[in-house]
């Protein structure tokens, strides 16, 4: 994944550099650039463009990037079953959920969101350190924490848009 976009194999990612390389690769190899070309070249373009998309998706997201690094190190990320057995992560997740459930106004939800975003940022910083120190056990726990935080932020954001819209945003049918 790192090699496809020519990025260094480490947790820290220069977002602007990642973007620049992603766009540059797609500009050269996207199937739109190969419409009149022979079948073999078009196949290659399709394959490479697919790989570039996947690499961008993995490297652009801290949780997926961490999971991928753990996989490379032969220490796959923890599964859901392991999580439920971790009382610290479980407690914190329940607390945040409660706070979100109690938040009624947009300002209250904003407060919960801001706190969660702060925690996610801190968690990412810790992850950077853990990977730099090759402390994989710590990295596994932190990756799991970050997964939960990300899910929570998404839920909170969704709640927030519903409150702002002033209606019970219906199903996306």
């Amino acid at each position: 994944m790192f090699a496809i976009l020519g990025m260094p194999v480490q947790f820290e990612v220069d977002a602007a550099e990642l973007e620049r390389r992603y766009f540059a690769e797609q500009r050269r190899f996207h199937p739109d650039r190969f419409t009149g070309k022979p079948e073999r070249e078009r196949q290659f373009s399709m394959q490479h463009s697919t790989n570039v998309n996947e690499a961008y998706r993995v490297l652009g997201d801290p949780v997926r990037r961490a999971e991928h690094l753990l996989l490379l190190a032969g220490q796959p990320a923890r599964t859901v079953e392991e999580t439920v057995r971790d009382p610290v992560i479980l407690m914190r997740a329940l607390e945040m959920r409660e706070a979100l459930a109690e938040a009624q106004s947009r300002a209250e939800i904003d407060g919960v969101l801001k706190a969660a975003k702060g925690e996610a940022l801190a968690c990412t910083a810790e992850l950077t350190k853990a990977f730099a120190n090759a402390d994989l056990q710590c990295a596994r726990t932190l990756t799991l924490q970050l997964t939960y935080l990300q899910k929570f932020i998404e839920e909170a954001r969704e709640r927030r848009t519903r409150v702002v819209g002033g209606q019970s945003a219906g199903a996306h049918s």
Partner: protein
Amino acid sequence: MSPPLQIHEPGQTPLPHARRDLAVGIDLGTTNSLIAIAEGARPVVLRDKAGRGLVPSVVAYMEDRVVVGDEARRIMVEHPDRVVASVKRLMGRGAEDVLRVAGQLPYEVAAAVESGGMVRLRVGGRTLTPVEVSADILRAVKARGEAALGRKVTEAVITVPAHFDDAARTATKDAAKLAGLTALRLVNEPTAAALAYGLDKGAEGLYAVFDLGGGTFDISVLRLQMGVFQVLATGGDPLLGGDDFDQVIAEHFLAERARELGEAHLTTGEAKMALMSARLAKEELTTLTSGEWPIVLGGRTSHHRLDRAKLNDLVRPLVDRAIAITQGVLSDARMDPEDVKGVVLVGGSTRVPLVRDMVRELFGTEPLSDIDPDEVVALGAALQAAALTQGSSALLLDVTPLSLGIETMGGLCEKVVPRNTPIPTARAQEFTTYQDGQSAMMIHVVQGERELVTENRSLARFELHGIPAMVAGAARIRVLFAVDVDGLLTVSAEETGTGVRQEVAVKPTYGLSGDEMAGMLRASMEHAREDMEARLLAEARVDADRILIAVDAALRIDAALLSRTERTAIENQMQALRATAQGHDRHRIADAVEALNGATEEFAGRRMDREIRSALRGVAVSALEDRVGAGAAEAKK
């Protein structure tokens, strides 16, 4: 005329496809369709002689011909039963889907549809699939383009709603094939609109495209940066558009009318009439604040007053739905409304004042509509067509609109490719057997966001055979989903232990079967041949008429130049030609024309000699050449 020589910069090789004709962009809309081309920097809509760019997506099936566009819309008044409008709403739909919305569709759906097949329409004594009706619209649009460009049009970029599922996309590609067009690429409508804005206005940053058309609603969030158009998230509703606005207004009018006149049931045709009045009211209330519209049915007229406030009340639930979907898409893109720099309005229904008001309120910014909302999608498609045939510095990076997955135990849907995944993409997932010794596995491919398979759209089913006997859970079945740049899916499955492998290009459950498609293509080619034959026959008859008239005239003036036998010979040939021209064999007509030409050669020569002699008497030499020239031309006929 041969094209000028192209000289390339040293070291640069010419584009391999530089001599390819520039492809066109086509917006195949629910209400109107357009064709555009991007020669040079600016894309333009191709228009007819009267300057009209929009081709109403309305098709009338008359006994002897198919009529598309403005004329078909006029026919709708007299023969509503022969006319199909808004067929795009049925693209890629099955009979069951359509029954759910049957009340909203102003045409009759064929009763007997084999289960799981594509829906068919009964119109003007024919039974047609939506693909065939769409192909008729595409043919008309293509003809308009060919008339404007003075050349054949064979390749096009065709736009589709961003949320169109696999079946609807495949149906659109099939329609293009039937109309004799190669669909170089299917481009999502909001993405095309963004391309037109980005390239024309040099927009950069985060943009939302709010596309409310005649029948469909799309919302996309894109990042425009250094010529790259990156779609972050997209969503929409395949059954939300101006047609639904018309429907609620018509229902309001008809309820008033029922109270007033005590009418109950309406025929399909009458419903179409009421919808036309409703549509007129909606359009006029864009500029007026109130008005009155008549509905004339069965010789009885009722009058219906409507003002802007009441219109807003009627359509608000529909606009609310669009706004709710927009909020969901922003959330998918991990963005808030205030992050968006500009909102582009696309589609005729964004002219409705309430729509503009609610979009402005949500984003806190004045929406952009400086490129005509009716034309912007076609213009963007033309730009993409130019990029694909001639190269461009701009690049579109689009996403899958709906999650793709497969059915697992208990009728649950396991997502393999989540929505908003950049395309092209390929994702694999492993599944296993649930019975000891299980040798086959049914793979059911579905599209949609719901947990239960039955609430999602079924795309295809296929079976993987030859799994070696193992205990339950031991086999490893790897299912690979690949989505190409048109958003079309291919699925393959493999037992990884033994390499037993099967691949299917997804054949939509509600699509046309290969046989059906082949049959339609054959029929359309036969039609094309018949059409060509008919034209050549007509031309041969015109030739015959022309020579008969000319010889007849010559005989009346100069019969004296011929002997009796000579004259009879010519008259016999004329008689023969007249008889042959009544027939349908253009080759025999051409032969008879040739024979008459031969029989009159001597006669024409004598007439010319006489002409020259008489011309030489007392005519200035300078005028002589003209006379001879004219005489020669006459004799040739």
